[in-house]
């Protein structure tokens, strides 16, 4: 049977990589990539080559997306376009919310009208579980978060998931997969968290050492590819095996930390956000205190596959690609142990 796949969010890294890997698959006839802005060109801005992906510039918030779906006889929709933080390119928080929530509503409305769409894959995030001191240590997909996220990206994702559930109820003939990704990590990822680790000195919350979990971009793209090609209905957590403590991350990166008591941390976060230095949202501040880990057994069982990168390996790969100053303390210790062994 013929496959025509629509990928949203191709101007951003993960979306572009998904479109590129699907375009390289001979089983797929056409790949249509949409986004509000044109993707960066591979030559000039280091964008990902999209292969034979046909790019259509559509504002997801407008009903134009329905025309694209109808005109191209789309049968599979991979909705990757979820903006995680307000920025210069994505605009303010209000625009980000519109993009995430209204964009998804428009897309799902178009899918519901289409008689051809058979499969919808939606990118979500483990941020929907929130982050609180009353959380279980490890979230499974059916967990009820003790404190549901009340704003920002996490709230957008929660609302998006709500609309996706509604769509799945109204169109039981369509296979709907929702993927809750942990924080993406890897050479090409540009997120608030990767920017956080790119600072020479990182602020941490005094007296807290959260557990973090990462998914390597290669694994994330592979999961999205499998979901786009095969029927795997349901909601799945996607994360590398294991966890890293924030303290381990900064030590691996060889960074200096600046522990700040939590009330001051919140204030500084607001100030920095206001000044446009870093875009640390309140949920990310909560993550920096209480951390979060998810269970990925359901995905492993469904796909018969495990991520190639553990959380630690994903982070190390990110560090290698950024060439972060690592290893000075290690060299000192190796020298000392060597000296000791030579005695």
């Amino acid at each position, binding site marked *: 049977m013929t496959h025509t796949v629509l990928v949203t969010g191709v101007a951003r890294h993960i979306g572009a990589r998904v479109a590129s890997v699907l375009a390289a698959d001979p089983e797929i006839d056409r790949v249509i990539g949409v986004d509000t802005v044109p993707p960066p060109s591979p030559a000039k801005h280091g964008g990902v080559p999209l292969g034979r992906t046909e790019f259509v510039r559509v504002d997801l918030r407008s009903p134009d997306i329905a025309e694209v779906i109808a005109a191209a006889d789309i049968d599979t929709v991979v909705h990757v376009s979820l903006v995680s933080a307000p920025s210069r390119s994505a605009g303010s928080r209000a625009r980000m919310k519109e993009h995430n929530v209204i964009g998804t509503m428009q897309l799902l409305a178009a899918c519901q009208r289409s008689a051809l769409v058979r499969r919808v894959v939606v990118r979500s995030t483990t941020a929907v579980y929130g982050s609180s*001191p009353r959380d*279980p240590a490890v979230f499974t997909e059916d967990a009820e978060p003790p404190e549901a996220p009340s704003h920002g990206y996490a709230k957008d994702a929660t609302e998006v998931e709500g609309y996706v559930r509604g769509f799945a109820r109204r169109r039981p003939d369509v296979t709907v997969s929702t993927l809750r990704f942990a924080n993406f990590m890897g050479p090409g990822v540009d997120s608030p968290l990767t920017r956080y680790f790119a600072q020479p000195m990182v602020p941490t919350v005094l007296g807290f050492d959260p*557990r973090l979990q990462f998914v390597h971009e290669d694994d994330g793209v592979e999961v999205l590819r499998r979901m786009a090609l095969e029927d795997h209905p349901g909601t799945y957590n996607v994360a590398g095996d294991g966890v890293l*403590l924030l303290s381990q991350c900064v030590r691996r990166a060889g960074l200096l930390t600046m522990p700040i008591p939590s009330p001051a941390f919140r204030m500084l976060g607001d100030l920095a956000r206001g000044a446009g230095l870093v875009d640390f949202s309140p949920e990310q501040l909560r993550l920096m205190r209480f951390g979060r880990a998810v269970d990925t057994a359901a995905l492993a069982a469904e796909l018969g596959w495990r991520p190639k990168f553990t959380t630690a390996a994903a982070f190390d790969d990110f560090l290698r690609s950024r060439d972060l100053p690592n290893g000075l303390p*290690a060299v000192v*210790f190796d020298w000392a142990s*060597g000296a000791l062994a030579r*005695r």
Partner: protein
Amino acid sequence: MANAQPAKVIPITSAREDRARNDDGVPDRLAEALAYLRRRITGEYDVDEFGYDPELTDKVLLELLRPLYRHWFRVETTGLEHVPADTGALVVANHSGTVPVDALMLQVALHDEAGRAVRLLGADLVYQLPFLSHLSRKTGHTLACREDADRLLRKGELVGVFPEGFKGVGKPFSERYKLQRFGRGGFVASAIRAGAPILPCAIVGAEEIYPKLGDVKVLARMLGLPYFPITPLFPWLGPLGLIPLPSKWIIGFGEPIRTDEYDPAEAEDPMVVLNLTDHVRETIQQQLTELRLRRGHAFPPLF
């Protein structure tokens, strides 16, 4: 990298070597310490999904507690043969002492004498507080909730609970060794779901470390604490009043109570759960009475 010469140098059994230092013991330990520091500083160590850091726990945190365990409280253990070597079980213990030092001593006892890392289930207050929250996770403990208890037992871990909670640890000295209400029996339901045995544990000695004579409720409310204790030494002696009295301790493990004869679905039957909870409570109360008789005075060298 210039100074870091490869270690492939022919080992020189040099004259510099101090033979008096019993057979390389000191350099070996130094090399070990260096390797340890290197791992810590470069972050090349593992923690499990709950945040448990076995190396830090053993080498640093328990090391700080061991003098207290051995020389201050002179902890004695009985019934260690009942602790399973490598399978899941739920240790249920009495809680006392105003400050939960008993949890720490139980951890040292199980770690050093039974070779098991106990994974205690703590109150959510612990996870809101700075320092305490991450120290608690790093030493292997987690929040007392159904998900975590089930997950740990399924993984075959030794899980520990103090079902009395704050009611036990903060009870007045006059109530010593009287078990308080055992929560709502959630721990029993978890054990039944996992088919894991319940290991009743009695801790004698912790009641006397900070005899709680009074409680300043106003201060407790102001500080967000469950109670603000008055003991014979605290707050009169200031920080000195924080030194626990050197009572003699015994930690006893009783015969395991099997739960694998129940159907896991019976975890939803309140009658089964409450009856088993009562049974566990009575067993521990009996153990406490026996061990207390066996110990005699709380402060043996003094009386």
